[in-house]
């Protein structure tokens, strides 16, 4: 069976599964549409949260992000997992006890203000729309690569699939679809990882292989990797090379940003009890960790694999003990077939600059050391493998390891599962904000249950259409998910939720001005360096470390924005009157678990 047919079968079967689940678990009421009737088992919810959370970026790009930077990008690993500790202790249980449907609804009730609720909706929409464009693009690219259709066609197919199961199923359908998608994506991620770990370290578990020894050389794996990459003129993998301040701030921005993402928070509204919300965050992290502890192993092993493919001598001995891989080998050898496949996508590119028939991969910016000496000795005119996309580290793995066609097909289905599950979660958050917070909350409070359910479905359909159109013509901000979505979640949503729970004194004015200050300061800082609304050329300062205030990178600024939010909220609240008695009682009641069941039927 050829690869195309296999891809078609695996992707088709996974889609059929999602449709089946959606029909079985379709939503019949708003309580089911927004919160799955609060009947989701905490372990199930943990699994759904893991799929909801792990996006196309986690699945496809993260291993590569770590692979090419090494230790310094551990920020992503710690940041994107540490946020769950904050969720479990600072937000999820109390918001579950509050017992309503959306994040802006809590902000509106706790701060007894429609304005606060609308600001919450605006933040939610900016965050979720930025995030969803990336998912739709991921769907388009995956389709284009594996099913030989254009990116545009792929996007429309993806949109139709999400439409079918998310609009029908609501939170209830999406929850069980996400559980299935988690299983597909974790299998797809793990199988190639186990094989690459076995091949390089004889260790069945990639997590142990990373800290084990390397088969070819007998050295410890990480020592070997450090040696090879420094020989090639790159910075040592395990060493700290960048700014410590930014490493700390960026990790913290990712952590509090994760905890403030509305589409993740609403998942915890679906469990039956407050105590379930706590343990469910733990289960979510268990399932996330299954991928996140494999990712650094996949990344580092794929990087060593790539290096030893380019320099065959490095596999067993000194890096330069044999000549570099020849152009003829790349173009004809069956085991290098993957290079030819991926060259077609533009994610990998080589060029024999000096015409010696060999392709030398090295860092041509290194002015001294073994790489510079080798380049001088061999008369090189520059790095001859100028393009290696981060994404190859995961997507090409099964081919590099020479795994059977069905593994490639399941990786394709896994990439789609990661993108679709996150897109569905985001679309739920968006449609809830539109139908529940805007339509029911602000425009037409007297709307009937049935009409609200219809409004929720229509707003989800419209959101899918908007996300698809934006995915077809991605605006500049789509590439800035990390800076924009995490920055805003950290600087606006996380602080206001935390203060709403942990302080009885922060009032309406404090919350409103705090959110505005956090959001504006973060946006202005990002726009200053990235361009106003990310339009190229409109940035007021060049985006380099020398220009950053106190050396703080724009993507790390969410932490400062959060601090500004907290400070403004406390100062303004202190200068204005206390919140009314019924709001203080609300805070007291969300702090104790007792009575959560009753809150469901408000």
């Amino acid at each position, binding site marked *: 069976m050829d690869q195309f047919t296999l891809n078609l079968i695996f992707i088709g079967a996974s889609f059929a599964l999602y449709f089946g689940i959606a029909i079985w678990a379709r939503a019949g009421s708003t309580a089911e549409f927004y919160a799955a009737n609060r009947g989701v088992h905490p372990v199930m919810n943990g699994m759904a949260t893991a799929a909801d959370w792990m996006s196309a970026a986690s699945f496809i790009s993260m291993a590569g992000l770590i692979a090419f930077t090494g230790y310094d990008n551990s920020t992503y690993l710690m940041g994107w*997992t540490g946020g769950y*500790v904050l969720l479990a202790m600072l937000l999820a249980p109390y918001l579950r006890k509050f017992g309503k449907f959306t994040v802006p609804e809590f902000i509106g009730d706790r701060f007894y203000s429609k304005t606060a609720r609308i600001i919450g909706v605006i933040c939610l929409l900016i965050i979720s729309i930025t995030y969803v464009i990336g998912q739709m693009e991921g769907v388009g690219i995956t389709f284009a690569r594996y099913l030989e259709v254009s990116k545009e066609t792929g996007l429309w197919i993806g949109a139709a699939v999400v439409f079918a199961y998310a609009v029908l199923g609501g939170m209830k359908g999406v929850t069980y679809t996400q559980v299935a998608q988690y299983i597909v994506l974790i299998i797809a991620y793990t199988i190639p990882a186990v094989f690459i770990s076995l091949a390089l370290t004889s260790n069945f578990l990639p997590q142990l292989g*990373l800290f084990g020894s390397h088969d070819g050389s007998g050295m410890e794996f990480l020592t070997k990797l450090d040696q090879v990459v420094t020989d090639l003129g790159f910075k040592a993998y395990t060493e700290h090379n960048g700014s410590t301040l930014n490493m700390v701030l960026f990790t913290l921005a990712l952590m509090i940003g994760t905890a403030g993402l509305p589409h993740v928070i609403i998942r915890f509204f679906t469990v039956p009890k407050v*105590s379930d919300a706590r343990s469910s965050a733990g289960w979510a*992290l268990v399932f996330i960790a299954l991928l996140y502890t494999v990712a*650094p192993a996949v990344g580092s092993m794929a990087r060593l694999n790539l290096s030893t493919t380019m320099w065959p001598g490095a596999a067993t001995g000194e890096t330069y003990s044999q000549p570099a891989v020849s152009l003829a080998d790349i173009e004809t050898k069956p085991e290098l077939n993957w290079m030819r496949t991926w060259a077609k996508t533009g994610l990998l590119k080589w060029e024999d600059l000096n015409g010696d028939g060999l392709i030398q991969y090295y860092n041509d910016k290194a002015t001294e050391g073994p790489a510079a000496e080798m380049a001088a000795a061999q008369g090189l005119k520059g790095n001859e493998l100028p393009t290696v996309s981060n994404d190859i580290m995961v997507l090409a793995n099964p081919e590099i390891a020479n795994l059977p066609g069905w593994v490639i097909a399941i990786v394709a289905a896994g990439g789609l599962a990661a993108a679709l599950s996150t897109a569905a979660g985001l679309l739920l958050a968006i449609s809830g904000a539109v139908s529940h917070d805007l339509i029911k909350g602000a425009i037409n409070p007297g709307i009937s249950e049935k009409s609200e359910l219809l409004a929720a479905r229509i707003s989800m359909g419209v959101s899918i259409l908007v996300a698809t159109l934006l995915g077809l013509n991605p605006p500049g901000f789509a590439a800035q998910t990390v800076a924009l979505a995490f920055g805003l979640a950290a600087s606006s949503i996380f602080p206001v939720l935390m203060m709403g729970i942990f302080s009885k004194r922060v009032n309406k004015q404090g919350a409103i001005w705090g959110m505005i200050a956090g959001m504006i300061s973060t946006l202005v800082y990002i726009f200053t360096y990235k361009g106003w609304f990310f339009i190229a050329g409109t940035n007021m300062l060049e985006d380099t470390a020398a220009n950053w205030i106190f050396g703080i990178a724009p993507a790390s600024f969410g932490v400062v924005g959060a601090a500004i939010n907290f400070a403004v909220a406390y100062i303004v609240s202190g200068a204005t009157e206390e919140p009314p008695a019924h709001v203080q009682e609300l805070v007291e009641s969300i702090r*104790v*678990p007792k009575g*959560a069941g009753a809150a469901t039927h408000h």
Partner: protein
Amino acid sequence: MNDKQAANAYWRANVRIIWICMAIWALVSYGFGILLRPLVSGIKVGGSDLGFWFAQQGSILVFIVLIFVYAAWMNKLDRDHGVEE
């Protein structure tokens, strides 16, 4: 006012537990994983050092344990204060 005092005592106990857990959360990630890495670099872990292990694997494992410990601790606290569901 007895109810109120009991609720306050429960909340103070919860906040204390959160502080303890957050201290460990910060120690393994920002501490061992980043700032204290040079101090513990003498401890070798498979081709690198303890700080690298915490940054890439250890902190995540500690986070998981931390959440389950918190959840169990709070279940006990809920029962002790009679506020369980």
